[in-house]
């Protein structure tokens, strides 16, 4: 039962970390390597709102998500738009921006182990005989709700439909009058918002440290590669696959091998099915 309960929690955690990354790539084809930095920056923004501006906890959380979304949109509008379509340059540029944000935070004095966000709900309860803290249950609830809302947004909302159209065929979308740059900005806003959302529900479990930005990026990349770049369903399935294998590794092998799981998953996927579980890059399959 422990494996089931904590497997689900771990999987939803990974899915939350990766959704923003896969959304941006799926829509604009842009690998946003600043994703981990946006995750961490949200934590520090929320912390500043709560401790410096003394804002109400929920208001601080919501505002920090909005600010992170705007930062993401600004990153696209100011920098990434110039290298759009040049895959290598996109990776280098977004990674450099992420690096600048993370190292800038460190340089600005955001270091140490005492930056924390309060949990939404205190306490713990028993689920199927397994004790779980309420914040982790909330992570699962938020994860499921976000996945549901994303599905509704991309199927019933005009902007969501436009984003899907872009993801399916950018040229056809252009012919239908959809502004691809505007949609890419919207995707970056939404992707950054999701990175921030992951941060505000996950960071209260621990503390806000710059180094976590790199870990989040690695996990997001692992989930997206295994699931298939740009595929939301694939990302969710991959998160569950990696999440459960990690927990099984901790229980049946050794806890320090859990980090290997994500990296091994990337290698195995790239060898056996380079486009991932639900990837659409058939040319990669053909190369193999």
């Amino acid at each position, binding site marked *: 039962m422990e494996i089931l309960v904590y497997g689900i929690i771990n999987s939803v955690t990974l899915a939350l970390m990766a959704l923003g990354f896969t959304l941006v790539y799926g829509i604009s084809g842009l690998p946003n390597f600043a994703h981990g930095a946006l995750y961490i920056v949200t934590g520090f923004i929320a912390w500043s709102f709560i401790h410096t501006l003394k804002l109400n906890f929920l208001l601080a959380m919501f505002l920090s998500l909005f600010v992170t979304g705007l930062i993401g949109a600004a990153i696209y509008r100011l920098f990434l738009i110039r290298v759009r379509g040049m895959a290598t340059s996109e990776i280098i540029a977004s990674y450099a921006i992420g690096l600048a944000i993370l190292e800038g935070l460190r340089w600005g004095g955001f*270091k140490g182990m005492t930056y924390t966000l309060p949990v939404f709900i205190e306490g713990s309860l028993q689920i199927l005989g397994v004790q779980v*803290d309420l914040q982790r249950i909330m992570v699962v609830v938020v994860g499921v709700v976000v996945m549901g809302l994303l599905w509704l947004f991309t199927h019933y909302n005009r902007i969501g439909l436009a984003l899907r159209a872009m993801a399916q065929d950018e040229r056809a979308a252009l012919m239908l009058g959809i502004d691809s740059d505007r949609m890419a900005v919207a995707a970056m806003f939404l992707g950054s918002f999701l990175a921030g959302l992951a941060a505000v529900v996950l960071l209260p479990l*621990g*503390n806000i440290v710059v180094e976590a930005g790199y870990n989040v990026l690695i996990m997001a990349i692992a989930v997206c590669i295994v699931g298939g770049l740009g595929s939301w369903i694939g990302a969710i399935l991959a998160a569950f696959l990696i999440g459960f294998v990690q*927990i099984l590794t901790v229980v049946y092998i050794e*806890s320090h091998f859990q980090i290997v799981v994500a990296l091994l998953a990337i290698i195995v996927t790239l060898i056996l099915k380079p486009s991932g579980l639900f990837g659409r890059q058939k040319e990669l399959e053909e190369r193999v």
Partner: protein
Amino acid sequence: MKAKFVVPWVLFSFFILLFSPPPAALSAEKPIIIGCPLATAFLYGWDAERAIRLAVEEINAAGGVKVGGKKRPFAVEVMDTRDLEPGVPVSDALLTLEKLILEKKADFIVGGPVRSEAALAAMDLLSKYKKVSILTTGALTPAYHARVAENYDKFKYCFRISGEAVWMVTGEIIPCLVDIGNKFKVNKLFIMVQDVAHARGGGALIAKIMAGKNWTVLGDPEIYPTGTTDFSMGLLKAKKEGAQVILIWMDMPESSILLKQWYDLKVPALPFGSIIAPAEQPGFWKATEGKGEFCLANVVNAGNAPSKATPWTMKFFNAYTKRWKIEPEGYGTSSSYMAVYALKEAIEKADSLDPEAVIPALEKTDMMGVYGRIRFNAKNHQIIPSLDPKEGAVGTIFQWQKGKRVVVYPDKIATGQIQLPPWMKK
């Protein structure tokens, strides 16, 4: 009218010049440069830097270091080694050290490198450039002083004024665990360590020794990769197997998550941090919203938490708090502070900056410092430890109680008794 104003001003200025101290008579002398290779983004780096700067400010304010008939000030050059960051290669720390020696023209090295692996690799570099170094923080490996003993002529430049793993384990942690066992009638130990050399080694050593002391060590030590953010499976395992003490050896910031989860899951076992960096800091209480209460933490040397080990302990503690608006935060603080004073005394005794003269002077160091009597073993240059501050350098194990760091071990400097969390009491 003008002269009426000018004359008093001229006279006033004349008197100011006459009675003011000679303008920077001290700073006119060439400073003695202390190079500090430190992981400044981490506790064991920034607390060391602050302590070194405090000692230097105090020494300079008192006139400086008397050498060659002149009073020379200390100057501090700090460079970030980043050696506590995951994925940063040891070579980066070595490059930083070399830069301090060659570019910043450091006369002495005080502080790190902080990670044991980097500190060991730096020994050859210190030997190559003949730079006297006093290691003050981070590196706990016994291999450091063992290398000095094995090849004294090559590594005689390397001193360590802080504790090391073997004494820490056998002289402090094990006796403290045995005391806990006797006092609370507990004997089931669960070990959780970080996947780094000192933690793996320390965890394995404690497991081996405690098994020989009629304690049940539950399974192998659980080893967690640096950056782990979920310890629930390990904690549930500890709970299921009936652990009564959880020994933690981790220097990563995420280890505070472990304590939060321990609290949320109400694991009926006392958390004992042989090394648990976040719990060392005064801000830990607020950061965990009090969930870290009852956690024991080892800060290696006295003075890193409030106690009355020597008359200098609280003097240092208060001076640091006044200067940096925060209490000494953990391992590496008092030792870095004392290293500067030990160096000053050795330079003055040698009346030279020549390493060949300073080394024997450092070997003869014998002073009552912040954490007890400061003496080096002349053969391996490791500080001589003790449980009595009158005899040697004492460590400190404290427990978080009602928002305060209460020293519980060693007995000679203890300010309180170990307590169990309410959900552990029968």
